[in-house]
């Protein structure tokens, strides 16, 4: 058997709910043994995409292939795809061990009792749930529930696991720890994870590659570094929550906006013209004169301390908020006056222009 390089492939998959298009002609192929994050704001089709791959929803059009096999018409339980739910969806009437062994014990050809016991034990060790096997799932913490949900899926040895905001229900501390664990477990088992998240930091931190979903279509699918430094569309830049994005129109080597003409050096092809500049590439100047290079006049609103950096919020004409990030490794925090006006400046080569 020659295994295809990709673990799953979507061919022109579309899905509508009445008037709203949830998935718009999606073509996608994900490789074996890779960690893919799926980023997009809520309501932009992420969960629908995941549920369609899993077989919980049927697409209106298109073809889904898993492991080289067309599964479009297969019901969910025959697809061999793992799914981890945001609310964990543990079986409340079963113990931790029974939850984990559920798939082995109840598939069409159930495994033997001893085999189940051994494998449940192994997986309990792998995810670090020792000593909790006999507990009811109501008696364990959120992080432990997360592990049970993962263990329950891993034990059925799927080649592809879909995770729907798996860290969304955990507190910030735990989320950080679980990120590392998820990555480690995945690498050890060599499965593919498709991890849906609404958090750009989570997507960037965890994915070997990132899919950015925008209004039901794939806006960008690339490695984190490329997505981060070269967003493919204005919306991707916006979702990353790292760019100030200005609307306007391209005119020669400058971009016309209501805040003035902004210079740039390179341009990306796009349907929608936009001018983006990263938060940490913007400098604040007390000198209000336009001067050379792209700049926008703005007044200081507030600042927010983030530990390794500090965010400054400025307001330009018409209430447009411009964010400036100052890394503390680049010097002590500065103080600005809410009464005064400032000039926000950056280098033209730092601007990303779509048009």
């Amino acid at each position: 058997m020659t295994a295809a390089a990709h673990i799953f492939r979507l061919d022109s998959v579309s899905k509508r709910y009445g008037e709203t298009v949830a998935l718009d002609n999606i073509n996608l192929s994900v490789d074996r043994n890779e960690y893919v994050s799926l980023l997009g704001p809520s309501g932009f089709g992420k969960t629908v995409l995941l549920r369609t791959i899993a077989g919980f929803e049927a697409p209106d059009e298109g073809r889904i292939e898993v492991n080289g096999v067309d599964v479009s018409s297969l019901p969910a339980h025959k697809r061999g795809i793992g799914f981890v739910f945001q609310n964990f969806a543990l079986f409340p009437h079963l113990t931790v061990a029974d939850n984990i062994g559920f798939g082995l014990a109840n598939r069409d050809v159930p495994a033997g009792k001893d085999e189940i016991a051994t494998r449940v034990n192994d997986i309990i060790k792998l995810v670090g749930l020792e000593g909790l096997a006999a507990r009811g799932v109501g008696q364990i913490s959120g992080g432990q529930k997360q592990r049970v949900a993962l263990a329950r899926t891993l034990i059925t040895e799927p080649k592809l696991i879909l995770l729907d905001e798996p860290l969304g229900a955990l507190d910030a501390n735990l989320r950080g720890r679980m990120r590392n664990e998820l990555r480690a477990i995945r690498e050890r088992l060599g499965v593919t994870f498709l991890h849906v998240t609404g958090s750009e930091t989570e997507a960037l931190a965890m994915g070997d590659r990132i899919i950015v979903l925008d209004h039901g279509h794939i806006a960008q699918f690339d490695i984190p570094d490329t997505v981060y430094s070269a967003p493919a569309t204005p919306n991707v830049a916006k979702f990353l929550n790292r760019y100030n994005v200005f609307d306007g129109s391209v005119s020669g080597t400058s971009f016309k906006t209501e805040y003035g003409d902004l210079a740039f050096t390179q341009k990306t092809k796009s349907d929608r013209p936009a001018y983006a500049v990263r938060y940490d590439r913007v400098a604040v100047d007390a000198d209000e004169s336009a001067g050379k290079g792209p700049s926008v006049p703005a007044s200081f609103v507030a600042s927010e301390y983030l530990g390794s950096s500090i965010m400054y919020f400025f307001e330009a004409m018409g209430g447009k908020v411009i964010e400036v990030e100052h890394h503390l490794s680049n010097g002590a925090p500065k103080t600005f006056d809410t009464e005064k006006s400032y000039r926000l400046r950056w280098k033209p080569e730092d601007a990303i222009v779509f048009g």
Partner: protein
Amino acid sequence: MAVPAKTSSSTAWLLIAPGVLWMTLFLVIPIAMIVYVSFWTQTTFKIEPTLTLASWQQFFGSDTYLTSLWTTVRIWLIVLAATLVIGYPTALYVGLFVKSKTLSTILLVVCVIPFWTSFLIRVLAWRPMLGKEGAINIVLQYFGIVDHPIEALLFTELSVIIGMTQIYCVFMVGPIAFMLGRIDPNIIEASRDLGAGFWRIFRKIIFPLSLPGVVVGAIFVSVMVLGEFATASALSGRKVNLLGNIIVTQVGSLKWALASVVGVILTIIMGIVVSLFLRVVDLRREL
């Protein structure tokens, strides 16, 4: 949506089919049959499917039957009003005034417990209550409220009304208490802070919010009272003849066609009453 959309409708129909089939065969067709048979020809002990209006003419040409139609409607309206008037304050207390969930559950259970006694026994229990030598007369005489026992209590229309009110008023209390229990206490608190008196709060907030409960209760009570016959035959000494009693006696003497006529009339009244109530409240949404 638990099942892929494409298959969901057919799966649903597969699951629902036995129920739909059952209700069609054993409810819809039988009711249609009542309508059909009401036009059949009745001879002394037989009916024949020759269509005629004879049974209908017999019904509307007889004072006895028309009187019982009127009696049925009158008793229904009185019992409906009585269950509402007697039940509402109880529901108000259980659903709104009792703050503890446990206590209100206990009170509701206390109201429901009599239902685990046979309906007929509960009806019958009114006889030693209302009779000439019954409990009520004994108590009234003991306290010197009356000199002679009140005979009008038993085997009259009044005893039927009392019996029905007692038996059915829980069906009014339950739904109303349920709706009242769902009212956010903050709304009432807020309007009290605005200086609204209880009566005003009741009229403007409490009653409108409990209305779906009233309607559901009214539907229950109406449907049961309109189809009644046992209470009347047990407590009225055959003085009160409801439409239900006529059906039972006519079937007893094998007059199926006339029984069917009464059945159709009952169905029509019921249909009007229920659809009027449903106009006020969407039953499905409330459930």
